């Protein structure tokens, strides 16, 4: 049986990982608006996921038009899939 991943388990991080695993990459602004998070909160959650090696953070452009983008890493995708499997095992679906 796979284990619940404590890094992904908090609801905000789970939603972030779910979104990132469905796409190639997403901008900070898009994710903040769609997840209804504050800048500081999204930065904090993203930092925790990036430190675990689950997401990659890149900056595109310079000056006021610069954008921060997030993408799930291969490790992140594997960890997310294992976490979802563990959740389904727990609730027996």
């Amino acid at each position: 049986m796979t284990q619940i991943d404590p890094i992904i388990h908090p609801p905000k991080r789970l939603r972030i990982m779910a979104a990132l695993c469905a796409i190639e990459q997403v901008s900070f602004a898009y994710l903040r608006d769609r997840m209804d998070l504050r800048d500081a909160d999204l930065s904090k959650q993203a930092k925790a996921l990036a430190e675990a090696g689950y997401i990659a953070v890149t900056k595109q452009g310079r000056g006021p038009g610069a954008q921060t983008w997030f993408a799930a890493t291969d490790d992140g995708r594997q960890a997310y899939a294992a976490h979802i499997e563990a959740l389904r095992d727990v609730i027996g679906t």
Partner: protein
Amino acid sequence: MAPGDEADRAQLAIQTDEQAMATPWWFAPGFGLSLGALVALVRDPYWLLIPAAGGFIAFVVIALQVVTRRRGVLHRLEAMPRPLLFWSWFGSLVPIGSAALAMLVALATGQNLVLAVLVVVVATGGFAIGDHRYRVVARRLRAEAGMTG
């Protein structure tokens, strides 16, 4: 709702979000015109096709970057639901396939200008139809999943 199901819904939400699939009005005609230009150049001197192909690739790369920045999302084909994947491929392969076929016919017949006009129409229309059907299917998937807005 089970956590796994909620995660599946979060994935579908971003794959079918209106902003994440918004395409600027100029993309379809720009794509069609650039492919038509390639077909128009299938004539002597053929070396002109080399810089034209470079220009076409540059247009596609820059346009995709602009579209991605506006959307805030770069989609992942491997994770896309099958109906969305079908229309996504349709919008790409119909224009490129029609241009490839027209280039072969132009080589054989020399009717490059007539074929170029035909490719502009088919490529622009093919992309626009694929894009439109993608949105229709995305809205249907959202509705089936009980998502509003």
